[in-house]
């Protein structure tokens, strides 16, 4: 019915003419845009940019106008059409750090904000600098081939900064040219069709 809720999904993208077609799999999640089209239209500041570059979604504040979802060029905002229900015995499976969303609010990838906050606190409490790779989002953690990398772009020495610098001919942003969204998610072109897909 088109009411599924997926915070990250795999888009298939096809390039080339038959029979020479290449398929790419593009994980599509909230791009945490620097200039987010979804933020400016929310009447109640439920979609709001945080100081650390995330695009936060505040479920308690959301009134469900769904305008942000219309305006997100990536269609990553998922609206809760149905009140979520579990058998009582299953409730212990829910992540205690993540709030359960009600029917009638918008939700999306949070960049695992609960892990970011925990790492934040850990660093503050133990009074040490943040170590690269200490924090991984759930999708990064569970991807067996290591296709996803999470890190601090402000830190010159982090894995992700090095990766971006090293592969700079392959990096691209989805949708930035058309919508000027300044995404915080960077994609790398597949090596074999890096030229074919040139921007």
């Amino acid at each position: 019915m088109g009411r599924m809720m997926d915070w990250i999904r795999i888009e298939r993208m096809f390039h080339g003419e038959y029979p020479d077609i290449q398929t790419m799999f593009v994980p599509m999640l909230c791009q945490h845009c620097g200039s987010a089209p979804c933020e400016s239209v929310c009447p109640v500041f439920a979609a709001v940019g945080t100081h650390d570059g995330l695009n936060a979604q505040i479920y308690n504040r959301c009134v469900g106008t769904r305008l942000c979802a219309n305006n997100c060029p990536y269609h990553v905002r998922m609206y809760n059409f149905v009140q979520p229900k579990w058998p009582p015995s299953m409730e212990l499976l829910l992540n205690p750090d993540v709030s359960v969303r009600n029917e009638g609010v918008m939700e999306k990838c949070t960049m695992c904000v609960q892990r970011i906050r925990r790492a934040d606190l850990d660093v503050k409490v133990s009074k040490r600098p943040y170590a690269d790779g200490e924090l991984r989002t759930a999708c990064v953690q569970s991807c067996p081939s290591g296709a996803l990398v999470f890190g601090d772009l402000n830190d010159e020495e982090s894995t992700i900064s090095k990766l971006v610098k090293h592969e700079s001919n392959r990096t691209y942003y989805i949708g930035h040219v058309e919508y000027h969204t300044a995404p915080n998610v960077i994609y790398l072109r597949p090596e074999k069709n890096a030229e074919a897909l040139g921007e």
Partner: protein
Amino acid sequence: MSHENLNFRAAEISIPEIYNAAFEPIGRSGWRSNLVIAFCILLVLTAGFAFARQVFCGFWVTGLHIPVYWGYFIITFVFWIGVAHAGALISALLRLCGAEWKSAVTRVAEVITLFTLPAAASFPLIHVGRTEAAYYCLPFPNHRLLWPNFKSMLVWDVFAISTYLTGSVIFLYVTTVPDLGIARPRMKGWLRTLYTLMSWGWRGTAEEWKRVKEAAALYSVIILPVVISVHTIVSWDFAMQVVPGWHSEVFGPIFFVGALYSGTAAVFTMLCILIWTYPSFRLLITQVHFDMLGRVWLVLGLAWAYLFFNDFLPAYYAHKADKMDYLYYNAFGAYAPHWWMLVIGNFVVPLMCLAFQEFRRSIIPMFILSIIVNICMYLERVVIIIPGLEIYNKLNYNILPYSISPTEFAIVCGTFGWVIGGLTTFCRIFPILPYWELAETKSRQIEREVAGVNVAYFQSGE
């Protein structure tokens, strides 16, 4: 056409006759209006039930799904806002232009605003996911010191619509007070109590008349910018988005002119129904009104047609791909029947018919035409809102089309019931024709005759 052929009977009727005609329906009930009101109450109750079900069950009872998150609720919202514009245009604009023929139609137009605007304003509340939290859009003091987002057009909507609602209610009320005061001594029972309370001790002194007229003139000036801003802001709900087909620079004027166009159509429908229900109104609403208002309508129709096609021309010249996709999707895709019907029914047919005075003066064809334009303006909102969202789906993710669900249909019909039933009830309680303005025009005509200058009551402008 010379003034003798105007066939306007109000020129011949006396002021007491105007009174009798204008106040004839008050406090009476007939089977026709009873039937209409009963049917409308049924519609509203069904809508209430559907809304309650939506609140308790969740939004899945509507047909909405990603990526079509806005559907018939918003379409009907824009439609009602459009119709509500008739009130301000016809009363304020005609008042400012000093058109003498306006008196018979001004209050009809204002009362249409009175009922359509709440119908429109209810839709944002119905369509948000958490209706109980919708007050977050208002700037109210709270311990977290949170404000609404003043960058969001939805917040502008809240302010624009509430300003317009307040303004138009005051406008209508101020111009109704003299009628209530005049009619009060002749009313009986609860109507008399109501009129006494609502006329605020109106005595009809020269000072009071002066104030009413000043207030009416002042409101006409104040309400016009409000009207323009309201519908422009409603258009910005769409124009400020990145959705193809929505993101358009000329949406402000298109929506504004389209609103006036459909609003005038609604006034025509209402006038025809009034004439049919209350035969005494035939003395006061005549072919001249249809003719004059028909000209205004024709101009609005031309302006709307120009703007509507102009929306696509820059995209065509500039090879703006998404807008052209949207146009092709409209004209040859799933929405082709809607699109071509609206082009024919909004543009070809009215402009051909309205150009002829004979047509503008015949009441039944005008009634049919007004219904056609109302339907086609509704379709215009459909093809503006849904196809844009459907083709804004480049990520080959979900290609389900959107279709209206029974819940949405019931709620949309319920607002139609509220508007029609409200108007019918209003006619039975308050004078729908402004007696004092008609009588004033009439007495001005008598004065002119006395002064030896015989000017036709209604000048056709030819």
